[in-house]
């Protein structure tokens, strides 16, 4: 695990069992001051459970937490800790009162003086762009405005760590985008440490300094987004973060850092370290695959295959092309390329990718 910044929160041997089933197993995790760590993984990976355990809202079966080096032991420690952190859930969970009173809720629980409550509510309402809603009933605001209120309520207590449990997943895309932007700015300005669970890798990429990929209650890889996107630790991470092509194969030769891997009867060249005979997984990002309809010229790409197009799937701004070239391969192309090459299903094309674009994972 990397230790760059100062640790604000450290978890050790955190385990949660529910009905005899282990749902969380985190041997150790350190949260760095002022950074945003995203927990990414499919539903049921244990992201929410980990957040709740880190926020001391559920009692883990075993394990300890240390906040700024101080172990949280007694009930009083936990309570004091909870007053220094905040959490926002997927649902806004607003109280049946005005937006103002909602934002003020955490402050009033702390018996903050009236004038200060007023000042802070306005400050954070301003930050989240909901000044005009302060006197409105929280039941009569839109989903995005409600989530903004919920975030303002959490931030108004000026927490040292904020835990966010899929805060955008019930919002429509434009609302979500503008809120992510605002949250990113506010996290940056206030230098608040954040831990966010999400199953959306774009969301994770936009907000995180570090990413932790979770699967069945454990963290399978933790690192910077670049590290994870470019060097997934195993096939699960590769598949989950969008290496759409993951091909199992066996190394047939290894020469000066270039591997020849035989997969489904084809030879694929890849850069990596492995001995002949070893089983590997090859991961190829769709954006690194180029298509052409001409017979392949000389190209720097070491991997050139004849492929037949299986399906063309529109993805909004680009198209996803699924191909069969002995193995299953995915490429992304723009609308322009699709038109220029007049691609259609069952068409034969030439697919190529560099040996350096293949990420090798040892099995």
């Amino acid at each position, binding site marked *: 695990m990397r230790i760059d910044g100062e640790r604000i929160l450290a978890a050790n041997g955190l385990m949660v069992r529910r009905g005899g089933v282990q749902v969380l197993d985190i041997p150790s995790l350190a949260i760095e001051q002022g950074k945003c760590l995203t927990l990414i993984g499919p539903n049921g990976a244990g992201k929410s459970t980990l957040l709740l355990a880190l926020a001391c809202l559920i009692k883990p079966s075993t394990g300890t937490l240390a906040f700024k080096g101080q172990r949280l032991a007694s009930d009083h420690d936990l309570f004091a800790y909870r007053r220094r*952190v905040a959490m926002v*859930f997927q649902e806004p969970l607003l*109280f049946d009162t005005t937006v103002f009173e909602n934002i003020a*809720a955490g402050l009033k629980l702390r018996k903050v003086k009236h004038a200060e409550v007023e000042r802070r509510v306005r400050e954070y309402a301003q930050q989240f762009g909901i000044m005009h809603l302060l006197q409105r009933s929280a*039941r009569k605001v839109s989903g995005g405005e409600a989530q903004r209120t919920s975030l303002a309520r959490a931030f108004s207590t000026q927490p040292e760590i904020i835990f966010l449990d899929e805060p955008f997943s019930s919002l429509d895309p434009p609302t979500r985008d503008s809120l992510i932007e605002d949250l990113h700015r506010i996290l940056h300005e206030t230098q608040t440490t954040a831990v966010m669970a999400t199953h959306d890798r774009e969301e994770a990429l936009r907000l995180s300094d570090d990413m932790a990929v979770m699967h069945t209650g454990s963290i399978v890889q933790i690192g910077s987004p670049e590290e994870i996107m470019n060097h997934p630790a195993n096939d699960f991470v590769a598949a989950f973060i969008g290496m759409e092509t993951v091909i199992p194969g066996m190394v047939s030769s290894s020469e000066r850092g270039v591997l020849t891997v035989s997969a489904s009867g084809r030879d694929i060249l890849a850069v990596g370290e492995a001995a002949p005979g070893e089983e590997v997984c090859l991961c190829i990002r769709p954006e690194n695959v180029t298509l052409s309809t001409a017979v392949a010229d000389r190209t720097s790409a070491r991997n050139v295959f004849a492929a037949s197009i299986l399906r063309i799937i529109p993805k909004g701004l680009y198209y996803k092309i699924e191909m069969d070239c002995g193995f299953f391969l995915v490429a992304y192309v723009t609308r322009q390329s699709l038109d220029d090459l007049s691609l259609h299903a069952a068409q034969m094309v030439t697919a190529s990718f560099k040996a350096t674009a293949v990420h090798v994972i040892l099995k």
Partner: protein
Amino acid sequence: MDLILEGIRQAIHLLFTLDPEVLGITALSLKVSGSATLISLCIGISSGTAVALNQFPGKRLVISLINTGMGLPPVVVGLLVTIFLWRNGPLGSLEILYTPTAIIIAQAVIATPIITGISMAAIQHLPRELRLQILALGATRLQMVWILIREARLPLLAAVMAGFGGVISEVGASIMVGGNIKGYTRVLTTATVMETSKGNFEVALALGIILLILAFLINAILTHIQQRERPR
């Protein structure tokens, strides 16, 4: 038909002339049933909330007992309270049988399970994560319970109305433990029973109309609460 029309005419006359006896009976009814509801409210909301928020062995049994209690037959309650307060019963030394206090006790016994049951359902109906959210905002456990009760205030108000509606219109227990003593323990329902049996239909009708108005008011408030807001 004449009997009914004449009865209604006289009943309205009694109401509009503010007949002291009718007024006295109404005031006592409100006082007795109001006090009983207040007592049930304190016990019912706190125990309903406690059952809803805590996990303990036998919780299901407790919940089904509360639900059964919501339909306690008033005469059975009247019988049990009478036995307890009887001169040589367990609480006989208090000497409160055939007093308004005895009616209040009996009515509180009837209303408590109703208010407990509805409160429990109201608190359980709040999203589970709301509790976590309140704790995450830095609430103590007591503060959390208070906020939950505040969030469930509309259904809790409905609980109060249901409890009050149940006891103000109840007759069996009141007549058994109160004895329908004129000017002392005579309430709207017991008086209606007695006046009807004596053939004084105009007085019985006047009392009946007051009961109907009360029932209507309670239902109107309940309907208003249920129809208000809740868009999300």
